[in-house]
């Protein structure tokens, strides 16, 4: 299939693992395995994604690597924040890694993604190196937005951020899908939002336009159970977020299982390219508080967090599954752990040592292609600086 070949091409350029190093193994491992996935609850869909997924060795290691990287990077961001190296807002993605890693594996680099402020994981899977992410968080010139954006404003090609206003990105996502359709591109736009944003009015306006014009938009609700400190039961009259699209078909998937997410996204992508918008509710969980100023324990019990960590952690559960079916060996996974830790530690050290941008940068990036002699006025009218 067309989309399958695209995926195989893009697989070679993923960030991170040197997969060839893992092909030689002393122990007998199988090249691929088929695992069961939880059946999805469907809304206005006759059949949903399959209940079984086949995963190859390379893919398994790649998923494990990517999820470990996101987890370690978020932990590192938390530590840097506590050491006052990162200031301002910092919303961590720990616990939700399976969503970004699983979805990225089913979409192409030409598909667009837009999400809210809990975006570090997505920035990584969309191709930004951890060094650039941590550099952006610590405000250095090596950051992906030159240190000017910070946690909530990270962008890269076909990744539209990084949006601070709750729910604002959903109409934008529908617009991106509109642009893709207008230019006849065989691509979708994955538009993510949270359970807190799911009750915002502009989402329903976006659903309407998407359905009316059959836009190739996949709406994804990352339902982690809490909108800041409010649980979904206290916030929404209907917690079946997958059905909130009404005339837009939807499904609820297990957001802690990377393979379930992968299969659902594969299914949704095909549906969106052929039939119009579709809504996915990924039931997931975040371990940290809403942001770094929220301990995360005043509105939920520690036991709940501990239980989720022990029974439904995406990395631990996936690790156990792929070890059980002999896709990988424990030594290989241990090696991945060590390599990932080393890489993130190095990235953090580098980010702390990198310089910040010079003051002249304040005047840049205002227009996309300004004339060579275009100047911008400073606060004092006598200051004029050339803007690039």
């Amino acid at each position, binding site marked *: 299939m067309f989309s399958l070949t695209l995926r195989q091409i893009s697989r070679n350029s993923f960030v991170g693992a040197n997969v060839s190093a893992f092909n030689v193994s002393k122990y007998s491992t199988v090249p691929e395995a088929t695992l069961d996935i939880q059946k999805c609850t469907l809304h206005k869909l006759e059949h949903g994604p399959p209940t079984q997924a086949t995963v190859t060795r390379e893919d398994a290691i790649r998923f494990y690597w990517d999820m470990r990287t996101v987890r370690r990077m978020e932990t590192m961001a938390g530590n840097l924040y506590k*050491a006052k190296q990162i200031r301002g807002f910092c919303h961590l993605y720990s616990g939700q890694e399976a969503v970004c890693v699983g979805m990225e594996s089913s979409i192409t680099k030409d598909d667009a993604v837009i999400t809210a402020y809990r975006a570090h994981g997505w920035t990584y899977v969309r191709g930004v190196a951890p060094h650039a992410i941590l550099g952006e968080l610590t405000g250095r010139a090596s950051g992906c937005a030159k240190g000017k954006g910070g946690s909530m404003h990270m962008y890269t090609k076909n990744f539209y951020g990084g949006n601070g206003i709750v729910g604002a990105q959903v109409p934008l996502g529908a617009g991106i899908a509109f642009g893709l359709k207008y230019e006849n591109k065989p691509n979708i736009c994955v538009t993510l939002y949270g359970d807190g944003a799911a009750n915002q009015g502009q989402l329903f306006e976006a659903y309407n336009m998407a359905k009316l014009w059959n836009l190739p938009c996949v709406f994804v609700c990352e339902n982690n159970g809490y909108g800041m400190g409010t649980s979904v039961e206290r916030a929404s009259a209907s917690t079946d977020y997958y059905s909130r699209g009404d005339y837009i078909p939807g499904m609820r998937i297990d957001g802690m299982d990377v393979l379930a997410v992968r299969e659902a996204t594969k299914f949704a992508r095909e549906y969106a390219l052929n039939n119009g918008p579709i809504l996915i509710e990924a039931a997931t969980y975040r371990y940290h508080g809403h942001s770094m100023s929220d*301990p995360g324990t005043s509105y939920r019990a520690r036991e709940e967090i501990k239980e989720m960590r022990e029974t439904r952690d995406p990395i631990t559960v996936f690790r156990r599954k792929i070890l059980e079916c002999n896709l990988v060996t424990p030594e290989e996974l241990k090696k991945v752990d060590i390599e990932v830790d080393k890489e993130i530690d190095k990235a953090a050290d580098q980010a702390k040592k990198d310089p910040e941008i010079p003051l002249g940068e304040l005047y840049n990036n205002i227009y996309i292609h300004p004339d060579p002699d275009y100047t911008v006025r400073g606060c004092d009218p006598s200051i004029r600086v050339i803007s690039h």
Partner: protein
Amino acid sequence: MASAFGHFGRRSIQFTGFRRILHYDPCNIVQRSTSEIRSFHLNRNVDASIPVAMPALSPTMTEGTIVKWHKKEGDPISPGDMLCDIQTDKAVITFDIEEEGILAKILKAENSKNVKIGSMIAVMVEEGEDWQNAEIPESSESSSEASTSSEPSSAPSAGEPTARIRMSPAARKMMEEYNISSPQTVPATGPHGMVNKGDVLKYIQTQHLTKIDLRKAAQVPPSPQKSTPTTPSTPTSSPVTRVPPSITVSPEGGYQDIETTNMRRVIAKRLTESKTMIPHSYVSIECKVDAAMKLRKKFIASGTKISMNDIIVKAAGYSLQRVQKVNSHWSGDSIQIQPTVDISVAVATDSGLITPIVRNAAELSLSQISSTTKALAVKARDGKLQPQEFQGGSFTISNLGMFGIGEFSAIINPPQTAVLAVGTSVLKPSAEGKPCSYLTVKMSYDSRAIDETEASQFLEKFQQVMENPSLLMV
């Protein structure tokens, strides 16, 4: 475990560059590989200890106090476990740790105060490592501190070829009195390596020296500083223990420095603000409390234990409902009459005076006021008050009757506009000649918000209801 590290090879211990507990490497010439530059708190070598630094749990925090450790040395740690409770500038927050491993060493025990952000508070090792012999990673701060402090002490000895150390005359006199024969041993912190009197004092305290001057016959040897406990806490330590202020006794002169806690500093600041900014006016009245005392005895006989203070709180609530001007806040240029009567009751604790609030006191019954006040006082003494339980309030009552104080005046708690100071009841002859119990209350009020007439009306109502407590039953 060995197989997992197989082809990496264990790095030999001597090249880790860490300061071992048993072996001291002053030159520290060990080189680390450039890809793993020693970075504080974030470096994770394969077989090295993980330092745990003091986190900044709020953006304005610069230092904090470790109140309680939730883990002991040797405990396994999973990501998300509570490590310790830290008192920040705002509240006591639990520090959750995201690393995985075993807690090897606790470097800052419970009740360690003024721990700066970034300083090492504990050391962790990976699972399976020998935690008992864990190496304590050398922190960049301690090494830089050591280098800067060694400079001034080496300067005098290096700069002057003879043993001529620069010292202040007071320092010289002290050295003679305490028989410090080799002045070079006193670490100097003055400019250009000069030895100050403070340096000598510190040296005397650490070395526990005594004065040799026989003229001062009744000299008490300087007592060692009452230091905070440095041993690791026992598992049965109580939650949120209050730190008693440490008292340093100066060897000379005998004055005592009582260290102020954060709370006292805040109290001091607020009281100064209040007394200097608010024009206090005072008005007092005597109330015949025989009827109230009789009512109290009746209640106790029937089983509900209430105190005089509860009756006073209720009487004040009743009066505040009727003279609403006194139940107000001063907001800079306007008077805001508060919708409910929330009375702050002053409670004395070890660390200062705190005023938990009895909300809606005018609508509560006497027994409700009694139980609320008791519960709040217990919480206040344990340091467990929530911010909403002591912030706010529309009126304060301070009662020193239990000490036998006849009359006193209290300081207003801004943004409130009045405070009632209650004395003890004394037996005096009344106008008819009978012995009656009289209670004097003095109200301090903000003259900007309340004028004399209103203040007097309030006290009149208060006296009325104290002398006829049956009015409270309405």
